[in-house]
């Protein structure tokens, strides 16, 4: 029989309705067996195989990261990061270093932003050829909308030359810069060609770093445009093979496929609009730095209404990607339509990101029972008067991610990192929600923790098994290096995870017994 695990000398925040705090916890097999105060734990010492002294650190339910691109993040972690390149020469240096480090291995570059390059445009194949001719080089722009290939890659990958989006030189030879339809198909071909064994290797390697940050459950947003359906199929087929729980959100509109796979949820990154970065998120006002542009919607209202209604009719939980206020309006209107048509409730539909909701949106979402799946770390990276939100939205930056109002109105927020857009660090997410640049949008530490624990579990119908520390629940536990509730709010991001336990198994531990 497996020996018990005892955690003592901690500040165990249950995150349950009773709001209790215990000092010790007994884990037997994969469950929480008992919890209590003071010396009561001593009766269990004899049977305990391991005792962890939490040293007065906070003990929390394992973190749930509600928005995570696990396969692409894992593959990207093995890719060449070109986000810091400022010239063709920078790109070349990084590419040649990568080629030298792993001769003849395919090179996949990510994060290239032409706006950051002094040349002000993407390099063509002849530029990349100067630095690497021995292996195919496939570079993705930061938004994945453009691909740049060297000559080897152009000949190596199956390129659909007759499709829109192939750039030609004056001799009608492809330049290696690929956009539009051709880029979609090329990405699909390239990503599909990655064997699942590589995916498994990359994901397992990547999850190790995730576990160190206390995450025990991930909502994997896989498949769909700019990603690859094979990623979603891989997660589906690998169910139960990962060290932590990976819950699939398949970003497809193919309801029939979802039913055949017997999944009970659909979506994740079903783009109702675009991003602030690319000025494609749909706004009710013009972009501050691009007059005349209000972004765009990817659906007509009728089309979205019909799709959402079909999801309701099929009793599928739906997660729609919405960023700008116009997209949020469209999504909420579609939900209202679908609810009226079907009368189906209780499906806990989600809006992902929801960066610019109005009070009216929040109140209507509450009525519909919608959950907001949000990424607080966006505020840390882009929020405040001198960063991207201000640049793109002008004074409307003060309206982004109004966590406090959303919670006050009774809408559940589950927190996610949108990894690898932001780092997979729930403590950074908590820090960002607590220290929102706009004071009126800030939330308490406790509310911020809820986003990454009980609310995360609720948003995937798993609150009966996880999300709180209660006797009988799954022993998904994280121990911090200090008491989070009494830590200076500005220093929450400095808190370290000391131990991560998943279903009673210690996956990561820096504390001595």
């Amino acid at each position: 029989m497996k020996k018990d695990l005892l955690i003592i000398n901690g500040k165990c925040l249950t995150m349950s309705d009773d709001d209790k705090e215990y000092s010790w916890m007994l884990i037997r097999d994969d469950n929480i067996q008992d919890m209590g105060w003071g010396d009561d734990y001593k009766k269990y010492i004899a049977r305990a195989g391991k005792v962890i002294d939490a040293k007065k650190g906070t003990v929390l339910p394992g973190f749930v990261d509600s928005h995570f691109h696990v396969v692409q993040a894992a593959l990207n972690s093995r890719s060449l990061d070109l986000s810091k390149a400022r010239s063709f020469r920078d790109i070349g240096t990084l590419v040649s270093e990568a080629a030298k480090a792993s001769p003849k291995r395919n090179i996949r570059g990510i994060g290239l932003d032409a706006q950051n390059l002094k040349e002000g445009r993407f390099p063509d194949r002849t530029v990349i050829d100067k630095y690497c001719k021995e292996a195919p080089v496939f570079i993705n722009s930061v938004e994945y909308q453009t691909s740049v290939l060297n000559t080897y890659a152009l000949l190596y990958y199956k390129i659909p030359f007759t499709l829109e989006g192939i750039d030609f030189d004056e001799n009608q030879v492809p330049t290696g810069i690929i956009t539009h339809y051709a880029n979609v198909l090329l990405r699909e071909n390239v990503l599909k060609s990655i064997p699942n064994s590589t995916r498994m290797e990359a994901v397992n390697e990547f999850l190790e770093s995730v576990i160190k940050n206390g995450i025990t459950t991930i909502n994997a947003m896989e498949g769909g445009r700019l990603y690859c359906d094979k990623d979603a199929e891989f997660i589906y087929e690998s169910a139960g093979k990962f060290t932590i729980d990976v819950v699939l959100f398949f970003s497809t509109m193919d309801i029939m496929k979802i039913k055949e796979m017997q999944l009970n949820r659909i979506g994740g990154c079903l783009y109702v609009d675009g991003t602030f970065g690319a000025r494609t998120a749909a706004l009710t006002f013009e972009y501050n730095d691009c007059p005349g542009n209000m972004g765009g919607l990817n659906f007509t209202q009728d089309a979205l209404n019909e799709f959402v209604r079909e999801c309701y009719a099929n009793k599928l939980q739906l997660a729609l990607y919405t960023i700008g206020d116009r997209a949020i309006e469209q999504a909420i209107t579609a939900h209202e339509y679908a609810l009226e048509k079907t009368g189906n409730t209780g499906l806990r539909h989600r809006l992902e990101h929801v960066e610019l909701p109005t009070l009216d949106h929040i109140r209507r979402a509450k009525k519909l029972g919608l959950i907001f799946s949000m990424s607080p770390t966006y505020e840390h990276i882009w929020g405040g008067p001198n960063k991207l939100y201000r640049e793109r939205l002008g004074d409307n930056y003060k309206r982004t991610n109004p966590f406090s109002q959303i919670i006050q109105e009774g809408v559940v927020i589950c927190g996610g990192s949108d990894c690898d857009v932001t780092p997979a660090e729930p403590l950074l997410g908590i820090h960002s929600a607590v220290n929102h640049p706009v004071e009126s949008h800030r939330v308490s530490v406790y509310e911020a923790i809820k986003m990454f624990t009980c609310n995360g579990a609720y948003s995937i119908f798993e609150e009966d098994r996880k999300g709180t520390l209660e006797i009988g629940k799954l022993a998904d536990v994280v121990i911090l290096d200090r008491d989070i509730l009494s830590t200076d709010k500005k220093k929450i991001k400095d808190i370290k995870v000391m131990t991560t336990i998943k279903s009673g198994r210690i996956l990561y531990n820096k504390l001595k017994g």
Partner: protein
Amino acid sequence: MLSIKMLGQVNISCNGVNITDKMSTKQIALICLLVLNHDREMNREKLCAYLWPDSDEEAARYNLRYNLWKMKNLIPADPKGQNFILITKDSCRVNKKYRFQCDRLCIDSFDPHKQKSVEELLQLKELFKGDFLEGFYMKNCNEFNEIILFERVVCQTKQIEIMQKLADLYEEVNRSEEELQVLHEMMTIEPYNENFAYRILNIYKKTGNRTSAINYFKKFESKLRRELNIAPNNDLKLLYRTLTETPGSMIKDGMNRSKVEKKKLTIKTRCMKNIDFFWVADVINALLQKADRNYLMELHANYILDLSYIQNELLLQYERSVSLEHREVGKVPAVRIVNAFVKFLNHASQIYDINIHIENYNEMDPLSIAVLKHIETSSIDNICITK
């Protein structure tokens, strides 16, 4: 005869004997250059620049000389003593008098403005086994690599043109099935092409295949939305609307098919004494297994849903091919089941000559016995029941 295949994996054979493995990459590239320029002489210097750009002049000229000599040994002269390559001091070229075949040159014979027969186009279509010089890349031969890239663009464009011409010809002579097949192949090459999708939808409409048309549109629409985040164009949407709003305007399958001889269908069915409607449910299942499911699903949805009360396979098929909308099938009165079953058999018998064999009639449940009697007295055309 010498045969050179450049589309897909390169294959060079002489009188049926494959000699590709005996050739180096440079020799294949050299043949390729000479064949692509078969109507002119190629300067030796130019050939050297393509294939040995990094070598000094003397070494490059030696390499060319050596490889030409190797090829002369590999490719025998024809019965009239003609060699494949004519070599002079400064240049070389393909010998006009030497007979050989090359897929790449064959597709050059295609001109979209000139008439070709179906058979000729089919032969051309068959030549496309893959990309031009698939798997080929020569590290330092930039100019040669550019030729490959250019040729790939040319060949892919030709391939689509040839297939389009073939589809047009099939359309002219009303060979819808073949036209459809070619269009589907074209869609695998250009999966977002709305003109091709329009034609496919139109063929389904013209041939009365409404279910397939609706399904095709939905799949295509979903693909556009999922992968490109766009909706189909207005023409496609309008065509789709004619399918969903005016099904009566389509040619009825039954009408079409009644002109031809009905297909014979024999199904074996079993009974179970104490299970209500067991035999009826078994007949439905057997028909689902053997008949055209899409056609069966064209029966009015209400009858299908009534029958799905006793045969769940029907509901599953309905969800797969018609609508995914979740339907709760509540208790259905026996009279509605009987009525729906008769409609179902009537519908199936429009296109099939059905022989239903009952394997253990003695075990039939009372409700099925009543239904059987009703069918026998109704004497539905093209249904024969044996016990």
